């Protein structure tokens, strides 16, 4: 009995050792990424691996907060890259979870619209902590049959007329949407930036959201939840992303979206490199690859967002007619100016004062709002 046992064990040991050996061999060429679902499609990952030999393993992050948590789990270093949105990027930079990168190693960087080369959510003191990827506005989505006349202002979301038919994202960064509305409608508050709010301004924004709460059908957590709400008539107006609009329009639902006259918040995603990556070479190759016009265009159309590389426009139109204009990839600077891109709220107000509400406060306020 003993002998066969040992034989079995040794066989097991050999079997187990083999794949491990395989992993060590390939180690120089593996990238572990945290990405938004849809950001690492085989369509552009496969050609990348074929061209560079760098193998991509991805884990989808469900929210910005989860991405930050994942980047820090196990002391960091488990993941090489993260596709961080603006509400996560500053947390990663100040938490020293990501490293500065050299844009001169990214050939397409010079083709980026100027606003996306050094946006404040990934560039600190002139240092680039990552390369901008894609962006999109947070729009006002409405049912064209139920909401008349067509809304032009965010005030529609605070209007008792649509009581019980309003939906907004379940996300603390949503406080910025209320702040943006107050910035334009209540100048006396003196809000300059919806992400840099002192106590008075912050309280004004959260009390606006508290007043809005009785109108809310649901704070949606997943894009598919909002799509369901609009499809089934449980919501007729809400804050949304272009992705939901595209999906609903494709399903022949009577909806439209708009960037209201107050402007809108928006997201700008950045590929950031872990401070503890062991594959800097592959990471740079990925940054360069994902910035090329073709890949930018493919991702823009797949996900329904806007590329930062201005050369992607022509390819987008080739892939899907009219998509460049549809996603504002050729929009003038004026258009970007009305989009306030997500960034992590921190105590530093940017004007020398340090009394702004940081993200922890935003999260607490959000939990209390939901109750």
């Amino acid at each position, binding site marked *: 009995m003993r002998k066969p046992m040992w034989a079995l064990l040794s066989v097991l040991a050999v079997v187990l050792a083999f794949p491990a050996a395989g992993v060590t061999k390939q180690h120089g060429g593996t990238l572990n990424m945290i990405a938004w679902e849809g950001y690492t499609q085989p369509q552009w990952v496969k050609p990348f691996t074929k061209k560079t030999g760098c193998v991509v393993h991805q884990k989808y992050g*469900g*929210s910005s*907060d*989860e991405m*930050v*948590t994942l980047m*820090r789990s196990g002391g960091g270093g488990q993941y090489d890259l993260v596709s961080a949105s603006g509400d996560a990027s500053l947390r990663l930079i*100040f*938490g020293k979870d990501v490293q500065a990168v050299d844009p001169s190693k990214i050939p397409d960087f010079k083709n980026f619209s100027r606003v996306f080369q050094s946006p404040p959510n990934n560039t600190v003191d002139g240092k680039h902590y990552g390369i901008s990827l894609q962006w999109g506005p947070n729009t006002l989505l409405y049912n064209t049959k139920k909401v008349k006349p067509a809304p032009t202002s965010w005030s529609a979301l605070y209007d008792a007329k649509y009581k*019980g038919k309003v939906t907004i994202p379940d996300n*603390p960064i949503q406080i910025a949407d209320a702040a943006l509305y107050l910035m334009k409608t209540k100048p006396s508050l003196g809000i300059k930036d919806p992400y840099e709010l002192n106590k008075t301004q912050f309280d004004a924004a959260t009390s606006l959201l508290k007043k809005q*709460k009785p109108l*809310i*059908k*649901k*704070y949606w*957590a997943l894009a598919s*939840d909002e799509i*369901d*709400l609009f499809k*089934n*008539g*449980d919501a007729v107006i809400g804050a949304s992303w272009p992705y939901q609009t595209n999906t609903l329009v494709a399903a022949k639902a009577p909806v439209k979206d708009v960037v209201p006259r107050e402007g809108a918040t928006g997201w700008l995603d950045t590929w950031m490199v872990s401070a503890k990556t062991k594959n800097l070479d592959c990471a740079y190759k990925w940054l360069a690859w994902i910035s090329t016009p073709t890949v930018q265009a493919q991702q823009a159309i797949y996900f329904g967002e806007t590329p930062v590389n201005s050369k992607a426009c022509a390819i987008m139109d080739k892939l899907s007619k009219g998509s460049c204009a549809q996603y504002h990839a050729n929009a003038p600077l004026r258009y970007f100016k009305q989009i306030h891109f997500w960034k992590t709220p921190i105590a530093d107000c940017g004007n020398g004062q340090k009394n702004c509400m*940081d993200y*922890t406060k935003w*999260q607490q306020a959000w*939990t*209390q709002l*939901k*109750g």
Partner: protein
Amino acid sequence: MRRRIGGALFRRPALRGFSLLSPPVLAFAVVYIAALVALFVSAFWTVDPFTSLTVHSWTLDNFRQLWSEPTYRHVAIRTVSIAAAVTITDAIIAFPFAYFMARLASPHMRAILFVLVLLPLWASYLARVYSWRLILNSNGLLNWTLDQLGLPAANIAYTNTAMWIVFSYIWLPFMILPVYASLERIPHSYIEASRDLGAKGGRTLRSVILPLALPGIVAGSIFTFSLTLGDYITPVLVGGASSQFIGNVVYDSVNQSSNLPFAAAFAVVPLAVMGVYLLIARRVGAFEAL
């Protein structure tokens, strides 16, 4: 060597029992007890707000925050009340069903009913919750039916009422089975004796059947109550604007704020509630019917 061990085991039954039981007991201690202890201990730690790293110094801050912040009290009360409402609803629905199964149905019928009770458990939990969304939403089956009957539409999609209905549906089998087991165990002679002594149906039910079935109902209620208490998916899917459960706040503290200590502190609340509940359940003799 082998023979000597075998001999020792044969001579000392205690040793035999010990060596047989120690692996599962050890696994239980490590996996179960240790996890609970770790949870309880970490509830007394805090998190550095800037680095999100756990600070290992003892403090009651988490519990103080739980107590002083009305939001968390509301969430805890909501969770416990809905769990209680679901338990009562399930008990009321399950009792006649289980009674029919145990005492009136033919063996063939009983087999069919068993399959019907267990059938939903074979389908995915998520699929069942989503199907309720299809029934309850504004353009859903419920409102369509009401409309056909000329009744006004019911607006219960994405409300706490919707959660109550969905939970009651999902956990019903866990109530039916223990109640069935306890009813089946009542000897027929007891009921005959009750009748011989002149008791009518209602009196027999109240004085004989219900007291004997009570341990089964309490056993079932342990399932329905604790399963509702710990759930956090149904509130996300069918809940409305004010539908957070303890589980949702725990999930958000871990995923949004990386605040494990606070999550642990809040997770102690359902644990304490369940502890009290189980003590009461033991008094009623529920563990004999499990």
